[in-house]
Every structure is written in C-alpha cells, then in structure tokens.
C-alpha cells in the first residue's frame, strides 16, 4: 500500500542506544511512547493492588481487614485516582498514540518532539506530587466533591495539585497530536485513507485539548477554597457546592471518552486484520468518533440527577444523554458487520477485541439505564453504577489496551510472547472480570450502596463471589504481565509483518528504525483493503 519504505536489514533500531540519558532526554516518539507505557502500567498494577485490598475487606460484612472506615475510604480514593488520572486518561492516548501515530501516518516523528518529551516529564512530576500525597492520602473518592473535600483533614490539596499538573501533560499531548495529524501525513495519506486509530486519536486529542483546562481550573478553585478560605463552593460564603459538580463533570464526562475512544480505534485496527475483511462502514466509524466527542460535552448533568438539581435540567439532560448511544452503537454494529462472513483467526489480541465488543455493549446498555432519569434515581450511587463503570472502563478501555499490547508487541520489541499463555491469561481475565463485576449489577439493583466498608449480611454471598472473581482477574493479569515481560527476553523473533496487516506501521522492520522512514512513503491504497485483488 505504500512506496518508499526502507527494508534494509542493517538498520539501527530505535532501541539500539542504551543508557539513562538516551531514554530520559530522548525526543523519539517511540521511546517516549514506551516510557509512558511502562509508567502507566506501573500505576495500573498499583491501583489494581488497592482494588484487591478493597475486595478482600468486602469478603465479610464487618470491618476486619482495614482498621478504620477512613482507611477503606483512602483505599478507594487511591484506586479511583490512580486508575483514572494516572492510568486510563493518559493510558492509550499517550502511550500507544505516541508510538503509533507517526508510524501510521508516515511521519518521522510528532510535530513538536521536544514538547512531547516535556509532556512526559510534566506527567511524571504530577505522579511524584501524587506519590508525595500518599503520606497523608485523601479520602474523598476520585471526584473530590465539595463540601466534604473542603472539610476533610486529609491531604486533598496535594492530590488535586498532582492531577492539576497532569492536566498540562494531557493538553500538550493533545495539541501535539492534532498538529501532527494535520501537518505530517505522508503524501497520499488522505483523510479517507487514515487508519481508524488515527481518527480515534484525533477525536481524543480534541477532548484532551478543550476539556482538560476546565478540570484544571476547577481543582485550582478547590485548592484556593481550601487554602485561602475563598467561598466558591461554600453556601455560607456565597458559593454553591453544585457548582463544583457542574465544573467537574463538564470535564469528567468527556474524559470518559478520552479514556475509551482510543480503545475504539484499537478495535477497529485489530478486527479487520483477523477477520481478513475490509472494515465495514469506515466513514461511519470515523465520523462517529467525532460525534461522540461533540455530544459528550452536552450530557454532564446526568451525573447529578440526585444532587438536588432542577427537574427541568434533569429531564433535558436525560434526553441528551440518550444521543451518545447512537454513534456508539454505530461503531458496534459496524464491527459486527466486519466480522460477518470473515475468515476469523483467534489470535490473543483478537480475543481481547471480541471481549471488548461483548463487555462494552453491556457497559453501554447499562449506561442507557442510568441515563434514564427515573431509573437513575433508584440506581444512583449503588453498585450498579460501579458495575456499569467497570464494564465500560475495564471491559472497554482495558480490554482494548490489553488487545493492543498483544497486537503491537512484535512491532515495539521485535520479539514475541508465548501465544498459548496469552490465551490462557485472556481466559482468566475474561472470566475473572465477569465474576467480579456481573454480580454487582444485582447488588446495586437491590440497593447496595457504593463506597461502604461494611454492609448488611444479605449482600455477603454476592460480595464473596465478586471477591473470588477479583482474584481470578488478578491472577490473569499477573500471568499476562509475566508472559509479556518474559517475551522481551525470549529469543523468538517474529516475522516482520506477522499478521499480514496492510497498515503502514507493519510495512517497516520491527522494531522500527530510529527515524522511522528512510524516505517518506507515498501511500497508494486504503489501509483496510483486505481481500482485494
């Protein structure tokens, strides 16, 4: 599909240079992508451990593992904050986006390589601030709702400052990717030939650029209220606590799509390769990413249906929320149509992609329940919401992320992992995830509230099942991690293009050369022209 790609076997790979400074001061987008990948994976595992501790506490109705309920509150605050702000928001967008966007569009690097390195270091500074806050961690949950976040004696300021700093990394990365896609596409790489991962990354970058400043300012206002006693959110000083929720969710609902849209892009890359068929409804999938990015700014109030907001506003936002389901369903139907009559190969990455479709559909449909005003009043702040959110975030984003890890692994490292072990770990992850979170729909429906360390005995059997599921899930992720790390040290060298993919990044040697392309390629065909003669 492209001319001008170097196939010289004596090239110097991007991994060739060794040493701390060769990595820490690199402006190579691939190295920065790998650094993001390692960092976010560390925080994912750390947040996963806090989740296991919480699930262990919930084995019994009484408080027995943690000494106080505040410790439990700290655990779920850490879990949520680490997962959301340190793993899932920067996760796919920054790590995979950095590595893949220039390769997929035929560029030698991103538009602003130094700014890209700065983005990573700003991200790292944010993580250091957060880790400092662990000495006296907050107990507010990841949403930092006022008035509790203002009143609590725990260290809200430091953790929100960490998130504030992280926001700059997100904004800079988003701007870099937007300019890269506009200015650095190879000749012939028209908008209608762009890989769908690029479309998804572009839509995500818009959200990163335009939504993130709002949460940054919101958290700054919270810090000012807490430290300078200014009454933005305190009614006694003329403020409004609901104002915080408005500001917070104006960012944080679009942020849900910052988390999941890149995963849509990954699924759109994996499915045609292993179904050996052109992607069905290319333009519909591409444009639906934009539709989601735009509509996501119109729905934030559905997080506040029981916060005491006006019924008029609640009814309007319940209707607007339903609109998001349309472009999302367009994607799911097009993926299914791509699979129809395909010659499907069940590679481990394809298993994760198929899991994504199944689990994300459950997450999406239960989201429609929660968007319906009357139903939400009953289900709000119950385990139903916890289950829904995890079906979207883990069933969606994390499954997409795991799929990407297995799909592009040979491209990143020029090595491969044990495929049988990968499939076994996928099975454990899939089963463990469903055993953990599916019972939570029923618990929530029956009235079990979220964020409680103790609970009535009637919920114990479901909690025990959920905790057993978390152990299976943890085991699956552990085996997957060991398998992927072992793959780096293995001697197995895969073929240059092991999946016979038509995408540009697979037309070059693995791992890629330092400057990607000796000559900028000329793209002559569509990325998904599988089955054409």
């Amino acid at each position, binding site marked *: 599909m492209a001319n001008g790609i170097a196939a010289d076997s004596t090239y110097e790979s991007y991994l060739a240079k060794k040493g701390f400074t060769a990595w820490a001061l690199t402006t190579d987008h691939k190295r920065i992508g790998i650094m993001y990948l390692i960092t976010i994976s560390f925080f994912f595992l750390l947040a996963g451990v806090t989740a296991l501790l919480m699930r262990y506490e919930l084995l019994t109705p009484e408080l027995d593992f943690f000494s106080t309920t505040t410790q439990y509150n700290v655990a779920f605050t850490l879990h949520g904050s680490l997962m959301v702000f340190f793993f899932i928001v920067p996760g796919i967008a920054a790590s995979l986006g950095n590595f893949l966007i220039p390769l997929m569009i035929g560029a030698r690097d991103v538009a602003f390589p130094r700014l890209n390195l700065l983005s990573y270091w700003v991200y790292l500074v944010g993580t250091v601030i957060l880790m400092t806050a662990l000495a006296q961690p907050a107990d507010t949950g990841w949403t930092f709702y006022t008035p509790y976040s203002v009143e609590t004696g725990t260290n809200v300021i430091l953790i929100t400052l960490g998130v504030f700093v992280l926001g700059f990394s997100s904004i800079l990365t988003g701007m870099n990717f*937007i300019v890269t896609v*506009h200015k650095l596409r190879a000749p012939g790489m028209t908008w209608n030939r762009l890989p769908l991962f690029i479309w998804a990354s572009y839509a995500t970058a818009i959200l990163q*650029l*335009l*939504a993130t*400043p*709002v949460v940054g300012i919101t958290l700054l206002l919270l810090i000012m209220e807490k430290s300078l006693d200014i009454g933005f959110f305190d009614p006694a000083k003329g403020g*409004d606590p*609901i*104002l915080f929720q*408005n*500001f917070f969710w*104006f960012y944080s609902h679009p942020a849900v799509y910052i988390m999941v849209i890149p995963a849509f892009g990954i699924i759109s890359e994996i499915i045609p390769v292993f179904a050996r068929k052109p992607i069905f409804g290319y333009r519909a999938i591409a444009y639906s990413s934009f539709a989601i990015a735009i509509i996501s*700014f*119109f729905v934030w*109030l559905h997080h506040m249906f029981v916060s*005491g*907001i*006006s*019924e*008029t*506003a609640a009814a309007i*936002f319940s209707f607007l929320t339903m609109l998001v389901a349309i472009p999302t369903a367009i994607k799911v139907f097009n993926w299914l149509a791509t699979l129809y009559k395909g010659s499907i190969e069940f590679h481990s990455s394809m298993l994760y992609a198929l899991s994504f479709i199944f689990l994300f559909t459950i997450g999406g449909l239960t989201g429609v329940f929660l968007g319906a005003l009357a139903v939400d009043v009953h289900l709000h702040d119950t385990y139903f919401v916890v289950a829904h959110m995890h079906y979207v975030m883990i069933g969606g984003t994390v499954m997409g992320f795991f799929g990407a890890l297995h799909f592009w692994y040979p491209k990143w490292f020029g090595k491969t992992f044990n495929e049988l072990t990968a499939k076994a770990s996928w099975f454990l992850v899939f089963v463990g995830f469903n055993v953990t979170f599916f019972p939570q729909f029923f618990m929530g429906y029956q009235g079990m509230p979220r964020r409680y360390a103790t609970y009535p005995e009637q919920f114990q059997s479901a909690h025990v099942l959920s905790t057993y599921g978390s152990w299976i899930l943890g085991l699956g992720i552990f085996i997957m991690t060991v398998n992927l790390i072992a793959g780096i040290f293995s001697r197995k060298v895969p073929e240059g293009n092991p999946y016979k993919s038509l995408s540009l990044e697979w037309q070059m040697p693995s791992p890629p050369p330092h400057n990607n392309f000796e000559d900028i390629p000329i793209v002559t065909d569509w990325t998904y022209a599988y089955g054409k003669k």
Partner: protein
Amino acid sequence: MSIENRDHIEEHHTNIWSYVFVLLALFTLTAFTVLTAIKVDIGSLNIVLAMIIASVKASIVALFFMHLKFEDKLTWLYALYPLFLLFLLIFFTLMETFTRVPVLK
C-alpha cells in the same frame, strides 16, 4: 496552507509597529480597568464592566501577539470552539440554577 501564504503571514508578523500599537492599547485598557474600579460604581454591573475590558484585552493578545488574525479557518475554529463550550457550561449551569424549585420556604 501554501508556501506563499506562509511568507505572507511572516510579513505581517514582523511588522513592529503593530506590536507597539497593541502594547499601548493593552496599557491603556489596564489603566482603564484601574480607573473604572476606583471611580465607577454601577453596583452588580461592576464585574460585567471589568470582564468586558478583560475580554477586549484577551482578544487583542490572541489576534496580534498570538497571530490569530493571520491564521487559517481551521485555527480559528480551534480558537472559537472553546468559547462555544464556555457558553454551554455557563448557559446550562445557570439554566439549572434558575429552574430549581426551593424545597424549603
């Protein structure tokens, strides 16, 4: 954007007098902000007046110092879309606040 257009833009960027004019305008507006804060009292509209002056200053900075005046339509779109989002945020937040029914009287 063509090479010719880019050269055309560079010409505009290097016009020193436009920068001097903008700088003087910003100084004048800053003085105006201080003067109105001290001398003018129009009650709750004080904040509106201050915000209008601040918006004019921000627009001048964006147009000339940040070169928005010389950019293409796509850059304008990226510059103006956040203003639309700001409008959304303010409009719906106020709409929600003003349509609340008091629970206690």
